[in-house]
């Protein structure tokens, strides 16, 4: 689980969640292959692996792109359980998708049972600012409530695409280092400490 420099590059597992059509796959594909796919094809589940250089260190990122549709909720838990960090995506042009993030957050916390799991709230489609339905401050307020960072992205223009993935990987990485340091007895302290830190952020 923790990174072992001897045994190949560290592997960080990222899961994309959010309602259907908000651009999870678009963000993933833009990050993976620098391509933007216009046509919409619902995802059931897709998984990708990529080698990247994170702050000078070579690491691997596994991205699991999940289905937004409720139809696939049954298999979602299996994936959530193995995720180390989450990008919770909504579309700034669709208020419902924003409301749905609440539910995704809850589902993740239920499965991971950890308030401080690496997590980013991502408002996608920021190139369509003229069609914005979700006010910026509302997003920020929610992020603050959850003590998570909020970032706006555009899969189309690639704005902040790398940023969200790299920010999340950094969180996962620091989380892992903490974990490996923390002895099992201090596990609870660590959780608290971690939470405090987040609120400061």
């Amino acid at each position, binding site marked *: 689980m923790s990174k072992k420099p001897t045994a190949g590059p560290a592997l960080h*597992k990222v899961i994309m969640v959010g309602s259907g059509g908000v651009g999870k796959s678009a963000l993933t594909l833009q990050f993976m292959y620098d391509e*933007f796919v*216009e*046509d919409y094809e619902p995802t059931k*589940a*897709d*998984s*990708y*692996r990529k080698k990247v250089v994170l702050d000078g260190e070579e690491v691997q990122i*596994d991205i*699991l792109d999940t289905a937004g549709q409720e139809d696939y909720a*049954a*298999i979602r*838990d*299996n*994936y959530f*359980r*193995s995720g180390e960090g989450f990008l919770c995506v909504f579309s700034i042009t669709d208020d419902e998708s924003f409301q749905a993030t609440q539910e995704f957050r809850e589902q993740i916390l239920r499965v991971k049972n950890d308030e401080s799991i690496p997590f980013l709230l991502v408002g996608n489609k920021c190139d369509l600012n003229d069609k914005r339905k979700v006010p910026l401050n509302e997003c920020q307020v929610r992020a603050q409530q959850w003590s998570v960072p909020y970032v706006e992205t555009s899969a189309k223009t690639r704005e902040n695409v790398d940023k969200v993935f790299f920010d999340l990987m950094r969180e996962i990485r620091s989380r892992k280092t903490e974990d490996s340091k923390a002895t099992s007895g201090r596990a609870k302290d660590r959780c608290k400490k971690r939470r405090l830190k987040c609120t400061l952020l």
Partner: protein
Amino acid sequence: MFYKNYAVRTDLQAALASASCHNSMDFDSPEEKEFPGLYASEAVDAKSKKSKEESDFSEGDHDKHSKKDLLIGRRKDKKEKGKDRGYAALEGESSPEEELDTKSPSKSKKSKTFKFTSSKSKEKREKSRDKEKEPKGPEEDPVHKTKDKEKDKEKERHHDDKDHKKKDKERKEKDKKDKSDKKDKKDKKSKQAQQEDSIGEEEVLALGYPIFGVSISLATERSRCHDGIDLPLVVRDCIDYLQQEQSLKCDHIYKVEPIKTRLMHYKRLYNNREYDASVDELNIPTACSLLKLFLRELPEPVLTTDLVARFEEVASHPKVTEQQAELQQLLEQLPKCNRTLLAWVILHFDAVIQQERYNKLNAQSLAMLLSPTLQMSHRLMVALLCHCANLFPDVKLIKYVPPLTSASPGLPDTPEDIQTELRKQDSLLTQIHSEMNAGFISKKREEQLWEVQRIITQLKRKLRSCEKKQEKSIDELEVTTSVTSTQPAAQQAVPPTVPTANINEDTVDSMSAPSQMNTSEHQPDEPNAPATPPPNPVEYTIDKQTGYLLLPKTNPQRDELLRLQMEYDELIIWQNELKARILAERNEMFRLKQLYEQEAQKPQAAPQTSQEQLPAEADYERIIEHYTRENALLEHKKKMLGKELKAERRACIALQVELRMQHF
């Protein structure tokens, strides 16, 4: 009679008790802890099943019932006692200790496990079932127990191997001596004398879902072959291994016993789904014995409890031809997975005896060796072997190629292979999900889930790009030629014009072409058509104008035939149009290429481009980006339009046909 049963039960329970106690001490399977409810449902099932059975049998249990509840909490000491007794107890004895023992809380359910199926009356209830696979704790026991019993009962009807009995006893004695040494493999046996049986062995099962000792359907479901053949993987692997020529020809096949620990090692690997062909290669004795072990541990004979007697009846049928038909009929009544398993096993055995020259096994001797394992008579097995080619004509023993893993060298290349692989991976993924949903979760499993998902994603991407290549092949050529002309203006200009041109052509075609080409197309057919009619017994006429064959009005297929002919014509016309267009476009491509070459030679071309480049670098890049995107978009729109056109053309043809039907 009743006492006898009773004693057996208590013995078994004693054995179980020590097993579960042992387990809980030695193995703390994490699954069990994390998902405590997991096995509960199974236990409940078993319980409800049992409670039914119990009603037939309540007299005997009566006593225990009343006391059962009082005795909670005394499990541990009872267990030790029970255990001692387990091997020492005499038939028919039901001492107070045993009684107490049966009531320990963990076993209160089990006390009902007795299953009396068809032959309730003749009770030689000698049960000895090895308690392998139980690291999961007490709740699951009842299930196995029930099954085991059934199985044993079946076995009684057939011949049991004597040597097993011997071994059994030996082991029992040994057990007694070192029961304190818990690490030792332990066979939990009740000791009713006439027990055959087997290789009980306590195993560390990482997951609570064994492959051995469960029904065929369950075993198949739990360890699928992902290529659509419903066999448990272990059976498939063994048969695959033994079907190799050098195995079939080896005179050790089905004769030599493997090293026991090795056999158990493989059993454990399969039970834990850890078998990896590249790491642990089978050998002939192990493969034979593993297959036999699987068959022997089935809770029900392959031929099923219900049908086995009827099979036996048929096998004694004097007329060979009728025998085959009747066997066929019975085989059809078997559950599908039983039939598949039987077919594979029998066909494999048949392949073995085909090599009699080398392995010295013929139908008779092989049946001698293996009919007990299959829980059928020698005669029946010989009959099946003799008819197998006709009984299972549709079954071919195909070597299993497991789904790719990330360690595999590469993905398949042709769309068909990709599709096949995708189906396998999907099947594998479904299995992983269902196992995980059932609570079988480990780090390794999660890794595998991601890996399979990743392979599926890659396969899908590859398939999509293959499809795109095919779809576009022609149009694409044109686009690429224009793209090579590098000037952004040209890039943008050419692709859009192509689709519009196509659209025009298409729409025009579908309006006008059919009527004109129609007649010309069919003129040449006419002379041929009249030549064929005479020999044909069906009466029909030929329409002079169109050359269509016309059936008499009374014939119900008249319309159908007419419609098909018309549709055929229309499609031929369409084909010709498309061919003509391809030709035209090839010419156009050639023309454009020439034009481009000419342009390239002219020096004036340069100033034009430099004008375009006047804006600053960044602007220039943005323009290129803009056009690339626009182009992609247009390309996509074009594709959609093409699809629409195709659909519309089809509709047109249908209408046209209907319209012309009116004339007849």
